[in-house]
């Protein structure tokens, strides 16, 4: 059997594997004879569903506005320190949303920074940060870079010729923006917005910590005592998420829009005149809120803990050795997941680039759909499956199953990056090696793998980053004796061990920041 055939079979197996969680949830609904229609009809479903959609819509809208405004301001306006703000703007990406929520809870907590600053002004105890607006604010602040990055790239490379033509034809700046710039940027804005929407639908950590009743939260809350509701909500959330991906695909097909976006002419700057400083102040204020405030508050609590080394319980308690152990096991588990994901996905990537076919695309579609599934849905499917199937209970809360869960969640990321890696080996080089007499394995070893290595490392790094930031699956499926940073932060925050949470968060943010810089930002123009 030749390599292509093997790869195709592997691709089909992968496709089935990635379709399994949602399929299993559907099956489970039937098996439990749960009254799906009945569950979906009651208010207990409508509330969380409505909340999920409301939050996803509101955060996407706010992120699109904030991301576009920040990109516009840093690319097209003559702000003082433009490049510096532009480099800072994508950084909130390094905060997992549950860390962001932790930071804001800690900011307003008793004895926190906000109280320290506000109490001399006569402001008393601050309310606990919770509910819709809290979730909206936190999720917007930490997801807007998904809009900012593509819009910025678009604005930088959009050929100025269109806007110049519009002006010469008699349109004022505002009209040019509305009739030319905005339509040209809209594909980037909408793509970013849909990504944010998917992210918010899947988000579990922030809404749980901020106590806003969405589908993810109800799945988590009902998983033990009301399994039919949990399963039905899981299926519902999965379907909604797939719907969002479907819309994204549909829009992507009409995306390019035909604007030439390959310009190397620097984009024209608009002189703001006397508005220069106020607009700059607004940009800085936004960055203070999204970047400086969470970092400062995490650092503040970590500092308080370090300054009080003898407290064993309460907000200032700090367990340095525990953090080190968690960090180490987090890195090990994430690395294993990364290596597994790249190895498993490489054949599919190779197939998609070198032997594109309908079956390969179908496999890819299923894999991508797996990526769209919220972590909690995948976790739910795996947990119920292991508890249900005979002998499977043996793997419940073991490392291999945890890795399988990560693979289901982030396999698509690995596949995409691996595709780029395979694409970096021009077919003519393989053919050249072939005409020089190299057989399959020699070609792979001497030509293809060396050229693919940087791309494969990037693919692995992306999975590493995602696993480190993942919460719900880790929370439900990690072996009980395996400490992970994300679940530690979670537990510390729930118990209001804020110093501990602060230090753990800083470690996680530092690691994720390093990886984000290496893998995402360094490749863009921020290098």
């Amino acid at each position: 059997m030749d390599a292509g055939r093997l790869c195709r079979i592997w691709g089909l197996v992968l496709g089935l594997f990635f379709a399994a969680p949602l399929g299993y949830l559907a099956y489970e609904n039937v098996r439990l004879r749960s009254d799906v229609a009945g569950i979906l009809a009651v208010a207990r479903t409508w509330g969380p569903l409505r909340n999920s959609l409301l939050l996803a819509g509101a955060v996407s809208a706010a992120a699109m506005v904030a991301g576009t405004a920040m990109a516009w301001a840093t690319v097209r306006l003559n702000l003082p320190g433009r490049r510096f703000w532009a480099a800072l703007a994508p950084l909130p990406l390094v905060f997992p949303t549950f860390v962001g929520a932790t930071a804001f809870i800690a900011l307003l907590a008793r004895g926190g920074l906000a109280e320290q600053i506000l109490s001399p002004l006569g402001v008393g105890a601050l309310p606990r940060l919770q509910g819709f607006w809290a979730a909206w604010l936190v999720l917007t602040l930490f997801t807007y870079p998904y809009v900012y990055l593509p819009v910025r790239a678009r604005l930088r490379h959009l050929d100025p010729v269109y806007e110049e033509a519009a002006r010469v034809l008699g349109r004022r700046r505002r009209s040019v923006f509305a009739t030319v710039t905005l339509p040209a940027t809209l594909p980037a804005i909408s793509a970013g917005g849909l990504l944010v929407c998917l992210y918010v639908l899947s988000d579990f950590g922030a809404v749980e910590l901020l106590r806003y009743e969405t589908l993810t939260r109800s799945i988590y809350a009902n998983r033990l005592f009301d399994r039919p509701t949990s399963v039905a909500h899981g299926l519902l959330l999965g379907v909604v998420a797939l719907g969002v991906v479907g819309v994204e695909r549909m829009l992507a097909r009409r995306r390019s829009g035909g604007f030439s976006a390959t310009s190397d002419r620097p984009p024209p700057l608009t002189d703001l005149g006397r508005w220069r400083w106020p607009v700059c102040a607004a940009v800085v204020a936004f960055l203070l809120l999204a970047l400086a405030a969470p970092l400062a508050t995490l650092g503040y609590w970590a500092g308080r803990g370090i300054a009080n080394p003898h407290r064993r319980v309460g907000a200032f308690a700090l367990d340095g050795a525990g953090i080190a152990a968690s960090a180490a096991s987090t890195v090990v588990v994430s690395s294993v997941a990364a290596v597994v994901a790249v190895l498993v996905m490489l054949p599919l990537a190779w197939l998609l680039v070198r032997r594109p076919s309908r079956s390969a695309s179908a496999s890819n579609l299923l894999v991508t759909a797996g990526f769209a599934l919220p972590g909690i849905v995948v976790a739910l499917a795996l947990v119920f499956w292991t508890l249900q199937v005979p002998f499977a209970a043996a793997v419940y809360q073991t490392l291999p199953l945890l890795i399988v869960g990560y693979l289901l969640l982030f396999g698509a990321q690995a596949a995409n990056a691996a595709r780029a890696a395979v694409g970096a080996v021009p077919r003519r080089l393989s053919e050249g090696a072939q005409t020089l007499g190299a057989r399959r394995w020699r070609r792979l070893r001497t030509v293809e793998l060396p050229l693919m290595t940087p791309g494969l490392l990037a693919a692995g790094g992306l999975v590493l980053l995602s696993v480190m930031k993942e919460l719900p699956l880790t929370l439900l499926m990690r072996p009980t004796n395996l400490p992970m940073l994300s679940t530690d932060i979670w537990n510390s925050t729930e118990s209001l061990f804020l110093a501990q949470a602060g230090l753990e968060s800083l470690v996680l943010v530092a690691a994720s920041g390093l990886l984000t810089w290496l893998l995402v930002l360094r490749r863009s123009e921020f290098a």
Partner: protein
Amino acid sequence: MPNARSATAGVPAPVVAAPRKRFGLSRNGDPADRTRGRVHAATSDRNGFLDLRIVGVSKSFGETEALSEIDLSIESGRTVSLLGPSGCGKTTLMRIVAGLEVADTGMVYVGDRLLAGPGTHVAPESRRIGLLGQERSLFPHLSVGANVAYGLGRAADRAARVAEVLEMVDLAGYERRMPDSLSGGQQQRVAIARALAPRPRMLLLDEPFQALDAHLRLELQTEVRALLGSLGATAVIVTHDQDEAFVMGDDVAVMRDGRIRQRGKPSEVYGHPESPWIASFVGDANFIPGIGRGSVVSTPLGDLGTCCHAAGKVAVLVRPSSLRMVEVETSGERDTSTQGRVESMRFIGHATECRVRLGDAVLLTRSDRMPTVRVGDEVTLCYDGPPAVTYPAAAVADLRRRGNGRRTEPSTLAR
């Protein structure tokens, strides 16, 4: 065709109307009305095209001087080709006229209206200048009709005007097509229609045919030339292509290093270039050494008549087509001084080019007759052209040192 009043009143676009008030044009009356008395304004009057005056415009980008003290006037209804190698500043000059770039010094007038000058910078949207760029600049998200109507504001007769200008560029009925469904040539025609629709006061065409392939370029050059003529348009065509400059312009202005070096009719610029650099930029040129004696110059090709007074050591411009080769065997006299050897030949279909070594110089000849000689043959060269143009010998030496900005090397091997 509407008369002048309705033509200009047909564009009550708010974006255009407001600045007109601001710059006092409504007080002075529409500039189009004032051109009516002029002798040559009969056609331009109808479409509202005005004259362009550029006075002392300079522009630097950091240390590099892009334009220095440019003066250029174009009467209404005339087309001038601005010819120069890339990087000579011609596109910058166009962007200054359009208002997309701000000049350091100098003034730009269209008609009597000051568009740019000390303390004045009329925004590009208020200038009423049509611009046709080298890149494809049609809005890809708008239909052909919406593209063409883009500059028309909220005029009532938009649809009629769109149909009218599309008719002019031979694309009647294309309103609902999308730009990406058109060929490159059609897209560029739509761009022309879009620039013409708001009845601009003048047109700037910046390398408009550069992206098209050769035969389409020729076709569009001819058509656009005819269209501009029939509209009585005032236009500047920026190009680095000599043929295009000659075909398109009533006048050609040659630019180099941010200055206009010569302005004149195409035949004048080709036949009497003001410098060896221009001579070799606008066409192939041989320069041979000579001694000027008033109206005659002695050269290796014999004594030639000159167009103007020449004295001392000079370099004589000899176009390849002015050289005739005679095979030595058939020529009766054996004047060794004009005798050369064919070094290489290039057959290009409609003509044959030969490089002939004459002493220590190699001269390029071009003939549309089938060659009877072969490489290595001895030939006699005869000058068969207009009264010769001469330059001081030092100027040619300078050209040889600096190059001429064209890809082909000039055959300036005279010592």
